[in-house]
């Protein structure tokens, strides 16, 4: 029963916000976009908000357009805006850690595939010196504007130092 009430409240809130924004559906998905679990799934209920990273509307991501070359593999990527909306949905459903993860993910959308794999491998135990980790954090922050991820990597560097998980902390290092 509690679930139904929450849903109702969310619907009301959404309608109010729509009124405030003067129509709502065209409102940009910036912070405080008012997206809640009532808008879920976005792919069905709010696909007007969904776009590929270079701006192709969701409805145009079709087989025909793939065949004609109008859309390519690169268009089938999530954007930081959509990750933010999904984060808001998770928050409104009481799952703040998921929102935090999706926040980091939003930052990582700008990091190329190969570099993401490299950074992941550098974060594995005994792979990097503390300086190497700190320079990755700087890179994330300065090059990609990924300040949350940068903070996370700096935290890892401290923990790895304390727990002897840095490069050179193993006898087998060759």
């Amino acid at each position: 029963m509690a679930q139904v009430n929450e849903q109702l409240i969310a619907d009301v809130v959404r309608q109010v916000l729509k009124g405030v924004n003067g129509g709502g559906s065209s409102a940009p998905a910036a912070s405080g976009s008012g997206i809640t679990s009532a808008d879920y799934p976005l792919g069905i209920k709010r696909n007007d908000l969904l776009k590929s990273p270079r701006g192709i509307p969701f409805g145009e991501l079709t087989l025909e357009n793939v065949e004609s070359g109008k859309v390519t593999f690169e268009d089938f990527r999530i954007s930081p805006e959509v990750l933010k909306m999904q984060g808001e949905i998770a928050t409104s459903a009481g799952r703040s850690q998921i929102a935090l993860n999706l926040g980091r993910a939003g930052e990582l959308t700008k990091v190329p595939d190969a570099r993401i794999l490299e950074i992941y491998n550098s974060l594995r135990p005994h792979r990097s010196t503390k300086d190497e980790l700190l320079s990755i954090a700087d890179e994330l922050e300065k090059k990609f504007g990924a300040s949350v991820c940068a903070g996370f990597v700096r935290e890892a560097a401290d923990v790895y130092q304390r727990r002897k998980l840095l490069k050179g902390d193993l006898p087998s290092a060759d």
Partner: protein
Amino acid sequence: MAVSKRSKRFEVLEQRPVHKDGFIGEWVDVGLIAMGSPNDPKPSIRIEGSKVVEMDGKRREDFSMIEQFVADYAINVKNAPEAMAKSELEIARMLVDVNVSRGECIRVMTALTPAKIARVMDSLNIVETMMAMQKMRCRQTPGNQCHITNVKDHPVLLAADSAEAALRGFIEIETTVGVARYAPFNALALLVGGQTGRRGTLSQDALEEAFELEIGMRGLTSYAETVSVYGTESVFVDGDDTPWSKSFLASAYASRGLKMRFTSGTGSEVQMGAAEGKSMLYLEVLCIMVTKGAGVQGLQNGSISCIGVPGAVPSGLRAIACENLVTMCLDLEVASGNDQTFSHSDQRRTARTIPQLFPGTDLIFSGYAAEPNYDNMFAGSNWDIDDMDDFLAIQRDFKVDGGLRPASEEDVIAIRNKAGRALQAVFAELGFPPITDEEIEQATYAHGTKEMGDRNIPEDLKATERLMKEGVTGIDVAKALAKRGFRDIAESIILMMRQRVAGDYLQTSAWIDGDGTVYSAVNDPNTYAGPGTGYKMSDARWDEIKAIPWAVRAEDV
């Protein structure tokens, strides 16, 4: 053993399958104990500001990397003083009480320390654990997942098995390999076969973490699961990760719009020789909390590949049900095991599955063998394709939704054949070693690899290397299918690719219906609050479950 004249009864009992199982006594020093080790820490918490400065009797400066991560990311410090003040018994009773809402239980359970959670579980008996599961699982509608593998890594058989499994109702399909370098073909076979069987089927490759991510980025898989976490620092490091690297990986998946869950399970730490004398369940609680802290939507647990260990000690299968329950109580999706052989005894095999099947979980099996077990490259599942009709009968006997549906022989033959032909088309279009009509015929009617010929493995492996090097993507596969006349399957692959733009299946416990609608704990939340509430089987679904093809119909007699 010292009896000189043997009892005939005992001689008969010794010949029973259960006597082939390994049973071992508890060995507390190394952590060969399921629950409640005397070495498990005593629950405690001390918070200064908003920081946990002491947890379960340990000071912050002495925290392992896991404890630090859990303390900082997985405990709601605002609610902790109130929640930790409750007794284990009081919290256990909340979990079972239909008058205490799921939301209230979540509020308390997410504010406890690992040791406290382990003790709450130890206050429940197995039926109470099942009652709590019915209320606490995230998504209302239960589902099921299977393994698609074979000992030859034969791609045509993989595609056919995927199609049949999807037709039978598995919402997720998972593969692994005999030879690691075959993995790209396995992914391709599951993608094509899965979408042939049912539009929306989620598929994954269980392999080395970095490779899984790469192949997921390409759109050859739609989610990842084998992203393992462990409960002791040294085993986590042997697993070549830390909570930070794993969390970064989780964010990397989400940044590409890919669903993922972590994997853990009781017994892995002692199996790897470093349980530090702690009980299997206590260490598993740490794993579940790492998952929670990483912001990952769900977890595969239920011992998984180490089930021979908890399966061999007292109260082990109960501990496994408890680890599933803890996952639910932390508001995480659970893919609840039942995916590995652990017993020669059919009675034990069935009993092991009841705690997940009867209350229902998000994915009752995290790997039902959709092939005969001799072809299951996860070293065998608790149930395999030869048990399928038993499973369907049990769903019908108890009116319980295990996620599967009866399928007719002609439908299965037709869908297997189509999957083989579709994969043949993709191989031809992408210039991979040809798939012959004979191979398709074999796979259409096969029980397993015993009916399949051999492929030229070195040639296949050269092709998989080329697939990776050239960067073949899901879009290339869709184009190939469309070009060769498999437009419907091509459309399905595009539908899967679109999911990663919308991101709806990043939410907790998500699966994709045939029309592309995503259902998850957000739009299908568990509302169980006692009899008459929660999941209610629709009439259509009940008719489907009732209609096992081999039942005698009254009107025919």
